[in-house]
């Protein structure tokens, strides 16, 4: 398959060790523009670490990571400038509890991009509107449901117009009835052409929204392919066992 679209994220030979334990044993992964790549695997397989290396919340031990062509591990890289091009959504939302929804979204716009208050609020409101929460702009995180908090968190990342968004188990901390609203927002992002790397176990979502599914185990990519292949006809025994366990 020829590379029609450029790689937004290009990971080569990524290794990560914590102390004496190597948790990523050389990961190669390229994500194309507008692609939605799903990463699944048992807990402890290194999925989250892989994601967190992509914006250097974890410092990679070896290998290279390029985001939109720029080597994010180069000595000359401005880490803060690099990070604002990479949106990240966390399992536990991590909204700022002392700021309302709008201020959660506008903080980086004002403090990192130096937008004026009016400009930041305009962008912030547009981002909240995109996740369907414009009416909750003045609400504090403690007054929002988990699903709403996670959508605000998505708006916070989105407002910076990232080149790629990383989702670290975005629905794992949610009550089942709240998962749908977050997935709907992610689906909308996908339609809007956002490039996404998602660690999640939402199999049904992966099936109909993902372009590619990666199965990781013990710090390695075991198998990857379109969702139909991974979920219905995996080639590797480990993938099969994991899928069987999940869909049981």
């Amino acid at each position: 398959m020829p590379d029609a679209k450029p790689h937004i994220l290009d990971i080569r030979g990524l290794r990560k060790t914590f102390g004496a334990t190597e948790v990523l044993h050389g990961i190669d992964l390229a994500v194309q523009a507008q692609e939605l790549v799903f990463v699944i695997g048992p807990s402890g397989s290194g999925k989250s670490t892989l994601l967190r290396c992509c914006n250097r919340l974890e410092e990679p031990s070896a290998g290279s990571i390029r985001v939109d062509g720029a080597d994010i591990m180069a000595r000359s890289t401005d880490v803060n400038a690099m990070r604002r091009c990479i949106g990240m959504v966390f399992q536990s939302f991590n909204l700022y509890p002392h700021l309302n929804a709008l201020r959660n979204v506008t903080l980086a716009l004002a403090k990192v991009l130096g937008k004026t208050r009016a400009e930041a609020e305009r962008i912030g409101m547009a981002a909240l509107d995109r996740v369907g929460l414009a009416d909750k702009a003045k609400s504090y995180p403690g007054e929002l449901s988990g699903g709403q908090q996670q959508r605000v968190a998505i708006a916070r990342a989105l407002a910076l117009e990232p080149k790629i968004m990383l989702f670290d188990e975005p629905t794992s901390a949610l009550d089942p009835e709240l998962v749908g609203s977050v997935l709907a927002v992610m689906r909308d992002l996908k339609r809007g052409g956002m490039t996404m790397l998602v660690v999640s176990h939402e199999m049904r979502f992966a099936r109909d929204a993902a372009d590619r599914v990666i199965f990781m185990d013990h710090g390695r990519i075991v198998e990857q392919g379109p969702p139909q292949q991974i979920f219905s006809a995996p080639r590797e025994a480990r993938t099969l066992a994991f899928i069987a366990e999940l869909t049981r």
Partner: protein
Amino acid sequence: MSRFLDTFFKWPVFERYLPAILKGMAVTIEIAVLVVIAGILLGLALAVVRAFRLRAINVLIIVFVDTFRALPPLVLILLVYFGLPNVGINVPSFAVLWLVLSLVLAAFAEEIFWAGILSIPKGQWEAARSTGLSHLATLAHVVLPQAVRLAVPPLTNRTIAITKNTALGTVIGVGEILNQATAAQSFSGNATPLMMGAVAYLMLFVPVVVLGRFLETRFAWRRV
């Protein structure tokens, strides 16, 4: 009964020494306010510096903090007041009292702010850093606003405890309330000025204690 009143509430003595006690109150308020400002600001500054986790600097901060929390303030006051002139530095007693109490409050305040900073979940740092905020910006806009709220109740208590120590100034001749009261008591041979001093302390610190209780409930943080 009349003997009791004569000892503690003698009108002529009251009238005579009221100006002195009022002057003492003014001095006490002055020192207390200056100590609170300097102590809390220095404590906050030290906690912020400590959050950069530079080992050598943090060791110095910890040594300072532990020393000033361990030593009785009176020992420090005497040490500075009677020690410094021996090396040729003459500091007025007012300044000695202010300096020592500010440093003691700063030491406690640093520990309280630091505990507040540490109690902010790692996810708050990660979320802010992932949007491109620098370490300092994250500290200033995300971590400290939350940490300071957590720090208010313990800080209020500690601040009250330390500002009350302005009474120690009496041993080096700072003209604060207790100093005025004991002087008046020895001149008059009557305990009324001491009673006046006690009332003056109540008038100053009861409102502060009440304010502290208000702040404690006001700032009780609703966690998400």
